[in-house]
């Protein structure tokens, strides 16, 4: 069974600054995918970024990037130039390769507040 752990229940950052959200996971799978989802107050789950475990290069999507450390089973999210609209709950999620993308295992979430 897979587990995903987010050790930071809450984080805050000033607008335009950089913040890093932590995530660790545990699995015996060799092929898997990792995700960060954003859940704003509207409650909808929005995919922020995706990382394939077989890729050594860290994924980036505009202001969002990850630091994927496979040996350490760590998958942190860096948000650069934080904006007020980044305020949300952020979930780290895992899925084993060879299965459909939908069966995700989520972490507990980190509430991020961006202050003006």
């Amino acid at each position, binding site marked *: 069974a897979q587990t995903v752990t987010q050790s930071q229940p809450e984080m805050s950052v000033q607008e335009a600054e950089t913040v890093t959200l932590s995530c660790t996971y545990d699995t015996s799978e060799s092929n898997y995918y990792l995700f960060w*989802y954003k859940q704003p107050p509207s*409650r909808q789950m929005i995919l922020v970024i995706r990382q394939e475990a077989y890729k050594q290069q860290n994924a980036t999507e505009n202001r969002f990037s990850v630091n994927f450390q496979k040996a350490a089973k760590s998958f942190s999210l860096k948000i650069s130039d934080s904006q007020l609209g980044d305020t949300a709950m952020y979930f780290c999620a895992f899925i084993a390769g060879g299965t*459909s*993308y939908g069966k995700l*295992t*989520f972490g507990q979430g980190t509430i991020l507040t961006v202050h003006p």
Partner: protein
Amino acid sequence: EPEVTQTPSHQVTQMGQEVILRCVPISNHLYFYWYRQILGQKVEFLVSFYNNEISEKSEIFDDQFSVERPDGSNFTLKIRSTKLEDSAMYFCASSRGEMNTEAFFGQGTRLTVV
């Protein structure tokens, strides 16, 4: 852009009553899912559905729960006899099912059991 839609956005029901949550997945998607998020807790997988049958379900998905795709477009979650602890946000999701596709989530239905 295509999206997953869920109705209603909020449902209040009395304990012991049956409730049906509805979802319209993205039209060319083949895999469908329900997730649950109890307030303040993590999102939990309930069930996946493919080719008109359940492909996987979690321990949470007991005999009180059922899913079906009655008409080829809607995907429903039925809770037969609701309990107070069923109060949660329920998310529907769908994916194309190929290895490089993501799951798209609906906006959720908040279920309140009183």
